[in-house]
């Protein structure tokens, strides 16, 4: 999987760039969870990539590129939020734009997807991010802990609370199709 064995530095760098590029769509998606506008999200991704490119050589062979990049983007986001909070600004969090959803929403499946996103949006941010990093980005629990800078026990409790809350919210407006899912 890793290209660390490559003796040629420039080839390793090229592979690093390719791996990096492969992660960009997921980074943009994560940034959209953190920030309201696509422009702000892409700015965050841009600055994270610039940071990552400067540190590419420090990436250990054994560590995976994805969690490393998620940690960079998350840390950058947190430090900016802190700065903004000091300045008294608030950043509204909005998961998706309705227009986009109306395109993807197809019948029951679409309704369920829209429900789950709407309910996800209502969760506290700490639970929401854990759920997404685990379920959607497929990071291991340990990696999520590293990305968010929290112990694995905290990852598990946030995951558990978030999922249970989401389940109850979805149950409240359960559709017949949902019960059939096993």
């Amino acid at each position, binding site marked *: 999987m890793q290209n660390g064995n490559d003796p040629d530095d420039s080839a390793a760098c090229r592979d690093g*760039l390719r791996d*990096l*590029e492969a992660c*960009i*769509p*997921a980074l*943009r*998606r994560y940034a*959209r969870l953190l920030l309201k506008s696509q*422009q702000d999200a*892409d*700015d965050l*991704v*841009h600055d994270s*990539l*610039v940071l990552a*490119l*400067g540190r590419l050589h420090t990436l250990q062979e054994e560590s995976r590129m994805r969690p490393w990049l998620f940690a960079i983007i998350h840390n950058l986001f947190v430090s900016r939020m802190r700065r903004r909070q000091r300045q008294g600004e608030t950043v509204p969090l909005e998961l*998706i734009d309705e227009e*986009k959803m109306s395109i*993807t929403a197809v019948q029951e*499946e679409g309704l*369920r*997807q*829209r*429900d*789950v*996103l709407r309910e*996800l949006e209502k969760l506290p941010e700490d639970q929401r991010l854990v*759920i*997404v990093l*685990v*379920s*959607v980005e*497929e990071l*291991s*629990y340990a990696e999520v802990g590293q990305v968010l800078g929290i112990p694995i026990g905290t990852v*598990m409790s946030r*995951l*558990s609370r978030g*999922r*249970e809350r*989401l*389940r109850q919210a*979805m*149950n409240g407006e359960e559709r017949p199709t*949902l019960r059939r*899912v*096993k």
Partner: protein
Amino acid sequence: MNEIERAITEDELHAFVDGQLDSARRPALERHLEQDQSAAKRVAAYKMQRAALRAALADHLAEPIPPLLDPRRLMKLREARRRIAWQMAAAILFAFLAGSGAGWLVRGRLPDGSPAGIPALAQEALIIHAVYATDRGPPAESGAARQNAIYQWLSSELKHPLIMVNLTAIGYRFVGGRLAATDHGPAAMLLYEDAGGTRLTVFVRPMPDRKRDTRTVHVGAGDVDGYAWICDGLGYAVLATAPTKDLHDIAVMVRHQVDPT
């Protein structure tokens, strides 16, 4: 035996949902779910949540990566930034050693001494020019309609109406424009080209903290040459890869178009 008897934990239920459960614990967990209806219902609901979230957020992955986020471009930018920073440092040192107040960098720092004014503008413009103007990518579409659309788009991104620069009178046609990220916010880069393939960059960045207009000063680093000024809260730079004939006259013409007063 112990392994089987150990009670299933909440964490293990989630690990099962996420495919992160140790395979040795799987049989015990499946037996547990057969006996515990409420746990089974929760696991089923969590699995459904997981699948629904993945499906709902899958579309994002199919979106094309904007050129601004292309890692190869960013790498080139990094390298250009490093190179130009060195060249600028050398230029400052030279102006200093020569004891000359005529160096544009020194002049750019005066009268308020801040390094954020024209020197910063010039450095950004030089980097953007070095990276993008020399990049002979696929030919950009041109034409007046497209030029309008690009100026409008950049104006809205910069939250500042941009006055269209027209250089057809001196043989330069509009080739394209792009939005560039700088340390001081978004900037517009507009590219013009003459029949001989000489490319000019007009770089514009809002500088809201700069109330005072400046003179047009000569800027340059390496083989890129140009002129920069600040006017009405916008910083401008007109750049070309040296030697380009009449660059000063072209800069004056651009300045006259964007600031007729």
